[in-house]
Structure formats: structure tokens, C-alpha cells
């Protein structure tokens, strides 16, 4: 339990996880469902109950596609993707916690890949 972290995450995300009514529309909408160990509604609940440390360790924060489907459809303005992003930002702000290092990139490139993919991934995966 870490209430301070809950508040930090809510502040970074700019949404109120307490507004969640556990309808599960986010989880019903999520295209990356199978890749996330904590599904969007669980993610919200864990933020609310202060289980941020578990979330910080979770790989799911890097598998969210940022497709905004849950933001679009959330009836309570909780918008799980914002919370996921906030936790990811929190993880990456720790020293050396980058999910993707610049030196890893060349190995993953192919000649057709657009610059946009690299910039985006770096922005998402690294401080």
C-alpha cells in the first residue's frame, strides 16, 4: 500500500481513479488484453488501492498500445490509459530503468521502418 504514490500517479495522469465504478468497459475494449498481466480495470483498481509497486514492476505498462480505446469509451472519465502512462513515466523516471536503451535499437531496425516508430518507442520506453 502506498497512498502517496497513488496521489502522484493520479496527479500525473490528471484523472481520478476513485471515479471508477468497475464496469469493465475498458477491459472489454482493450486490444492488448492478452498481453497485459493486469487488465485495464485491475490497473485502475490497483492504482486506487496503492499497489503501485507491483504495477511499476509489471511488463504490462510497456504493452499498452496507447490506442486510446479505453479513454474514448470510459463512462467515468477515469481513462485507464492515462493511469498506465503515468505509472510508466514513474518507472522510467528512476535512474537506469529505461525499458529501451538507444544501443538496443540498431538490432531491432529494418530498412523500411519509419523514423516515427523509433522516436515514439524511445519516448514511450525511455526517459
Amino acid at each position: 500500500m502506498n497512498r502517496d504514490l497513488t496521489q502522484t500517479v493520479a496527479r500525473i495522469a490528471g484523472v481520478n481513479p476513485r471515479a471508477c465504478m468497475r464496469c469493465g468497459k475498458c477491459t472489454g475494449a482493450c486490444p492488448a488484453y492478452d498481453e497485459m498481466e493486469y487488465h485495464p480495470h485491475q490497473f485502475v483498481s490497483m492504482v486506487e488501492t496503492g499497489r503501485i509497486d507491483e504495477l511499476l514492476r509489471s511488463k504490462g505498462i510497456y504493452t499498452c498500445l496507447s490506442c486510446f480505446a479505453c479513454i474514448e469509451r470510459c463512462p467515468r472519465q477515469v481513462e485507464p490509459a492515462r493511469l498506465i502512462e503515468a505509472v510508466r513515466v514513474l518507472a522510467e523516471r528512476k535512474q537506469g530503468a529505461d525499458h529501451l536503451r538507444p544501443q538496443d535499437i540498431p538490432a531491432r531496425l529494418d530498412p523500411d521502418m519509419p523514423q516515427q516508430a523509433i522516436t515514439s518507442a524511445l519516448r514511450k520506453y525511455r526517459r
Partner: protein
Amino acid sequence: MQRIGVFVCWCGTNIAATVDVQAVSDALAKEPGVVLSANYQYMCSQTGQDLIETAIREHALTGVVICSCSPRMHEQTFRKTVARAGLNPYLLEIANIREQCSWIHKDRAQATEKAIILGRAAIAKVQLNTPLQAGQSPVTKRALVIGGGIAGIQTALDIAEAGFAVDIVEKQPTIGGKMTQLDKTFPTLDCAACILTPKMVDCAQNEKIRIFSYSEVEAVSGFVGSFRVTIRKKARYVREDVCTGCGLCTEKCPQKKVPNAFNLGLDTRRAIYIPFAQAVPKVAVIDADYCSMLKNGKCGVCAKVCAAGAIDYTQKDELVECEYGAIVAATGYNPIDLSGYDEFAYSRSPDVVSSLEFERLMNAAGPTGGTLLRPSDKTHPKTIVFVQCVGSRCSAEGKGKTYCSKICCMYTAKHAMLCREKYPDTDVYVFYIDVRTPGKNFDEFYRRAVEEYGVHYIKGMVGKVSPEGGKLKVQASDLLDGRQLHIDADMVVLAAAIEPDKSARPLATMLTASMDTNDFFTEAHPKLRPVESPTAGVFLSGCCQGPKDIPETVAQASAAASKVIGLLSKDSIVCNPCVAQPDELMCNGCSSCEKVCPYGAITYLDKEFRGPNRTTLLRRVAQVNPAVCQGCGACTVACPSGAMDLKGFSNRQIMAEVDAICR
């Protein structure tokens, strides 16, 4: 010299816990003019009231201040108490030390200090109170019910039963409302039409009831006891008194492609139509948007086939003006527009339907004759997914409604159950957030759907519906099982949130009745006066006040009727004596006050006054009709010479309060 009595109420511990009531009564005892200051546990109790009465008599009080709960709660009670002791009831002021003091402050010292200040303000005001006499105004013994659904019908029948005349104004060509479109009703599964149509017929046959169908309220003036209402009878192009309702015209009309609003556009009707077989009144009406005779003067088939000669293409809207003693709003509800919910593919697939559309598809009098068929290909759906809370409990900006629509859990259980009963080979899924069944026999009903009928209730929500290859691919969450579900459904039914009818907002403006942010009418008190509007003489029946199911609507409709009967059984009612009053010596007849008066209560009179040197002057001065004035006070501020003042809230009284507060 004033002799004022102060009475501080403890309200049990409601006040006494945060306010030192003894300190308050001690402090107020020192105020000028106060001859007595007492406190007691419950001032509103019989003993408390006796205490006040006795004190008024024994101390020959000329004014009373009660420090207690909000005047909105007990001002009337205490006015009666004061009157019983022989004092004018308007020589009473209430200091609100509960809602606006003890309940909101935690610091005892601060709350006590504030209570004393509020008491002082009331004392300062009561010093300047004058005895007021309330006038009487007559009551027109006729009621108006706006809306002819089950709420309006029940209210009208009850009022008529008590012997009073009542008119129903219904904007559709027939009374009956939403209930006529329903198939079965929960939790007993009796047929809606079987229980409603006899009531509709009763309305038509009751000589105390007049039905203005296909009519709308155009304007309302006046006030409780004597409202003047203008009703627009829209042109039906059929003479109501001549049409026999034989329906021949509706079979012969060549214009066949008109979307049938009664079946929510699931099938078509003719340009001349009777909404359904049991319509009341059973009179045809021409849809001017589709009738080629009305649009370009060609056709006239209906006039030719009508043996009674009822068709009249030249008919015009007609305005009728009537007087009423009381008005009941029963404007009902509508499901919200679902076009904003395309994650459920509502506008992309005809097989995604709203619950009301589903109701028509299950109804024996509906477009499919009661056989459940998919609108797209007329096949029998094998897998049906119901989605609850579509647009309800939604705080997302501009998308849905923040409230729970209340009826959806139960009608969805009903639909699911009926599907399984009629077609045991169907798979029925219900996606829910919570199942809310607080009603008599409601939870048992829902459990039966699960336990006996095998409806799959899944705690979760549908995230997306995609029409694909004749199927509806439903992607949803099952929160209890921790799965994302993918169901190939044949039909998806959306439990759309319900909202007040669009006509309610303009009506509320006409009635000066207040509404909440969702356009539901506000009741005078959420618990103690649930069927009255804060506007005197306006009552509320059915869903216009908030979402309700049929039993609740009928209960409220009868309650509203009893309030109307109570009002109509009086010959006259006591007016509000706190009305405007001009000082004729200061008035210069400039008409500023008349221009701001919303009620037309101010007129002008050329009056003779004594001038200098024994002459007489003819001067134009304002006159206020106390029966019409509602006491808003707009004129008092508009008056440039300060001649207009408001009784009970005079300039001097309010300034005395200001002084006492700022002291």
C-alpha cells in the same frame, strides 16, 4: 416598545451538539426589545409549541424569534403556533441555526458565535415586522394534466373519481404513452396492453375527463387556483367528432412508405393512420409531412373512401383557452438517442436495437407479430447479447446521463427471461455493472431469470460490437472470471438510458417550475413533498420527476391526484401576504415597476391628492393587485423613487439584518 421573545431549539443534538444553546439564549436575551429568551429540546414538538404559545400570552409578546432549523422546514408550523396564541403569524422570524450553522461547522465556539449573530439579525428584522393579512383567492375547480401516459391517465382518473373536472393534454394522437408500446410488464409478466387499455377507455368514457389529444400546451399564465392555459389543438385534418375510427382510410391511402413511429421505425404505415388498434380517441390523423394531398394537392383518396365524411384537408391548428385550479406535469420520458454509441454499432447494424425496439419486436401487435426476428434478415436470432447501462451512470462529458435509469435491470431480466421462455434454443447473455432490483418481488424475478431460465449474467461490459459477415462480434469483459470474451451474437440489445421528454423544459419555463440539471422536474421537498413542484399549484406525476417503473409511477400519479383533490376541494386559498406595496405619496407613476413585473400585477390609477393651497392634484400612481403579485420584489429595486417596497422583506428589514450581521 417591542416585546420580543426568543426561543432557541436544540433539535435534540442536531443543534445542541455544536452550538452552545444556553449561551445563545443568554446572549440574545441582552438584545434590545427582548423580554424573554428560552431554549428547549424540540421546539417543534407539542410541548415546545405550547411553551411558545404560553410565553406569547404571559409576556404579551409583540414579536417572536425562533432559532431552529431552516424556515423552509418549519416556518409554517411556527406561524400556526404564533397565530394560536393570538399574535399575527407574520410577526415571527426564524434564524436558521441548523442547516446553515450547526450542521456545517465543527468548531463549537465558532458555531455558537455564528448562531448568536444569526439570532441578532432575526431580532433586528422582527423589530420592523408588521402584521400582515393574507388575502384569499378563488379556486377554479378543474385540473389540467399534461401528458397522457400511464402517469397522466392515473392522475386524471383519480381526480375525476373525486368528482372534479380534469383535462388531459397529450401531444400524440392517442393517450397511453410509452406503456402502449410495451409487451409484458415485470415482475408479474402480465401484458401491458391488457392492464392499460381498460384505463384508457375509462378516461374516454368518464364524463369528468376531457381529452385533448394531438395537442400541446402553448402558454400558461396566472397562479395557483386560477391558471389560464392556452392549448394548441394541432390539425389532424380529420374531424374528431365525425370520424368513426373504422380505419378504411388507413388501408386505402396510397402513401405506404411512412416510418411507423409507434413501432420505432421498424416498419411502415400510411400517411393517414391510427397509431394502434386500441387508440383513444380512435380517430385517424393525417401525417402532413407525407400526405401528397397536403403537400401538392394531388390524391384525396382518404376523403373519397371516408363514409362519414370526416376528412378535412383545410383544418387548421386551433387554440383553446381554459382556466384551471391546478396543473399536473406528467410529461414522461424517452430513451436517449443511441447514435452516439457506435462502439455498439447501433447505427451500423439493424440487428443492434434499443430495448424499446426489442419490446416492439417481442410484441404480438408489433411489426413481426410477436415472433422474434432479426430486423436485417428476418431470421431467428440464436445468440442474443444484452448490454446494460448504455448511457446511464456516465459522467463522461456530453455522452450520457450521470444517473441510474432505474428500470433497465428489471426490463432486461424480463426480456432475457421471455427470450429463453419463447425460444429455449437461444443463448442469452446479459452484461451488467450492478444488478439493481430493489422492489417488491424484483430480486426474486431476476434470480428466476438466472436460476430457472439459464440466462448468462456476466459482470462486465461490452467494449466493442463489430458487424461482420451477418454476425455481431461482441468483445467484452468478464470481470469475475478475469477473461476477455468474444461472442458471435445474432442480436445485441442496448438498455438505453432514459431522459425526460424534450417538451418538459419549455413547459417548466411556462409553469415557472424548477428543474434539475438533467431536466427532471424538482419536487418541493425530496422526501416530504415528493409530488409537488415548489411552484404552488403545480404537481408532478411519473417519470418527469425522475426515472420510475410502472408501479412507482402509478403510486406517484395517485399521490399527485390526492394533492390536486385537496387543493380543488377548497373554495379559496390563502395568498402570500408578502407582496409589493407602493407608497403613493412617493410614487410618480413612471411605469418602471410595471415593466419588470412578470405577472402583470401592477396597474396605474389617476388618483386625487391634496396639493398646496387647498388645491387637488391628479397624479398617476402604481397599484399592486395582491392576488396576482407573487412577491419577487423586482419592482422594489426598479422603482427610482423608492416608493415600492415588499411586505415581509422591506428595505428597512433587510438593512436591519445587514447591520446586525456586520455589527
